[in-house]
């Protein structure tokens, strides 16, 4: 699961608050990331342009150059994943951040666990994007009962089509491909819905709810999408149910 199997992921943190910055620096370092911490927006932009980072983590309100401007400049030539952190809580700020090309938006205050989940979700998505798709055969192998059709974006069970939407199909397929592994909401948002996760965003939960109803409607009960509280979702066999 750890995408940092080959080398330590390189993270640039741009945060002007000395206490929070130092804490993030220390904590991420302990989690096995290589962290560069910078307190000034202008310097941060130069660093992000001149070196290669796996993820850039930055505040919006910064001295020198604010986070959104850094993002705008950075996006002109670089595709480095960016996570914005901010105490500006308005929905508009979040949307603005995403519009300018941020990969995720983490409202302050956040826990270190949450931060780590978000970073890992992005690293994992980037790794997945780079990796070639597994062969069709391997995928179909264990799907004797539920058959995936990439063309129609739908699944069929005992000659009955479930009638999934594109997002639902992608979601089910991602869960299916990762077997019994619990996938975090942050990762599923990144990978399936291609956007950052916010606590009040219920789209993913709604897709899951609709997908469950549709699978139930065609009588598929061998495995089900289970919620793992505080972690995410997993597609698993019935007998393991709580």
């Amino acid at each position, binding site marked *: 699961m750890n995408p940092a199997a080959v080398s330590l992921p390189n993270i640039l943190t741009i945060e002007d608050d000395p206490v929070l910055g130092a804490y993030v620096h220390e904590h991420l370092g302990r989690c096995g990331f290589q962290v560069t911490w910078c307190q000034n927006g202008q310097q941060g932009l130069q660093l992000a342009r001149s070196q290669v980072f796996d993820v850039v983590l930055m505040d919006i309100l910064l001295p020198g150059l604010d986070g959104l401007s850094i993002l705008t400049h950075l996006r002109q030539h670089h595709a480095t994943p960016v996570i914005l952190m901010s105490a500006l*809580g308005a929905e508009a700020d979040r949307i603005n951040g995403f519009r300018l090309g941020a990969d995720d938006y983490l409202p302050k205050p956040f826990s270190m666990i949450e931060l780590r989940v978000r970073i890992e979700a992005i690293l994992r998505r980037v790794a997945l994007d780079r990796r070639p798709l597994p062969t069709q055969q391997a995928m179909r192998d264990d799907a004797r009962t539920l058959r995936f059709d990439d063309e129609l974006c739908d699944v069929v069970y005992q000659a009955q089509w479930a009638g999934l939407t594109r997002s639902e199909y992608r979601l089910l397929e991602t869960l299916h491909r990762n077997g019994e592994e619990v996938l975090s909401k942050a990762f599923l948002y990144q990978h399936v819905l291609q956007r950052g996760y916010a606590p009040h965003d*219920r789209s993913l*939960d*709604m897709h899951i709810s609709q997908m469950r109803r549709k699978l139930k409607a065609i009588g598929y009960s061998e495995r089900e999408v289970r919620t793992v509280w505080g972690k995410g979702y997993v597609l698993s066999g019935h007998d393991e149910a709580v």
Partner: protein
Amino acid sequence: MKLFERPLQRLPGKHSIFWKLACLLIAFCLLMIWLSWSWGRYMEEQNAFLADKSREILRGYAAGAELAFSTQGRAGVDAWLQLMATRESTWVGVIGNDLQSLSSAPLNDKESQRLTFLRGLDWPVSRHVKGLPWMKVPFPVDPSVGSLVIELPQRFMPGQYQLFWRVVTNGMIPGLFTLLLCIGLYRLLIMPLNQLREQANAWRADQLNTRLSHDATSRQDELGELGRAFDQMSERLQGTVVVQRQLLRDMSHELRTPLSRLRVACDSERDLTQLRERLGREIDAMQRLVDDSLQLAWLDTERAPLPVENIQVQALWDMLSENACFESDWPATRLPCVVGADCWVRGNLNALAQALENILRNAIRHSPVGGIVWLDGRRDGEYWHLWLEDQGGGIDEGDLERIFAPFTRLEGSRPGDGGFGLGLSIARNAVQRQGGSLWAENAGQGLRVHLRLPARAD
């Protein structure tokens, strides 16, 4: 001013002030043209005739001349003419019907020339003729004998006051009418604006409860619309200010409470793990409070429409009840959904989910042991009317509206506690922002919260 931007596309409405102005100005212009035309003519005519008094005097002269002629002949006329010369500075002569002088002095050529164009006393005298007109006054007793001819003395010329009347008809009266028009326009256009200005000044002085007069808002035209918009604006402004003040007061209380609890914990707790646990709890509660309060404030300030989508209520309920079951340890069977799979509403998923979740949490919190909470609904034209009912015993009739105000926590009647009293306010704001409505009533065994939401367009 749309009229002038797109003159052909849209005429101003029936009640538009444009029509009033147009009628008023057209009528005024026509009135002024007619007035100056007819009055000018009338005055001209009135001023063209000799005054009665002048005629009387001239007739008197003619009678004198006749008397002189009939009694003493030419010599009498000569004497009379000499007498006249002392009285009138202009030319005076007495002629017979053959147009020859009745005095001893014959007429010279120039005088004969003038005799070819004589005016009667009743004829109009034009001011435009150069010099003074020559008048012919027949002898009053026997007009066939002769006539008095007189170059009209200046003092008898009609139209002495012509300049005065011209000033009156062409200057003062139009001026007066224009003044009246101005007053009318002022009353029509500027008075309502003055009222608006007064209200704006009242706002500046923090008197937010002042409203425009009924006259100003009941007008049908654009100014009436402006007045109504202004009133709505002040309504909204006042509402916002009241909410803000209330919020500020409640917030100061609500924020200080967990802070003081934190301080107590900090001072009294000796055991580090327990302290950490307690701090964690307090921080969670405080974060929830701050998030909820800020969200409520944002919901109240943000007016941009939310993106909407079609939402299946059953699926939404499944999602929410799964969460609720996890939070409350209830089995899913205690949260049944009675509405059918055909119930699709149109709204913003996140806002609606949050609203329903808050209502559901509230219902669960106030449910008795083993109680159930269910969602039911029916199609109501373009809307879906949904209701969520619990068995928690309901609340006072008087509190049915109050529970939607921020930081309202009812004591006593219902079981359960906790929360900051923000859930239902957020729910109501969220529902209203997507074109729905939310209200509560007591029903049977508990509280029934009604939701009215736009149905999916078929």
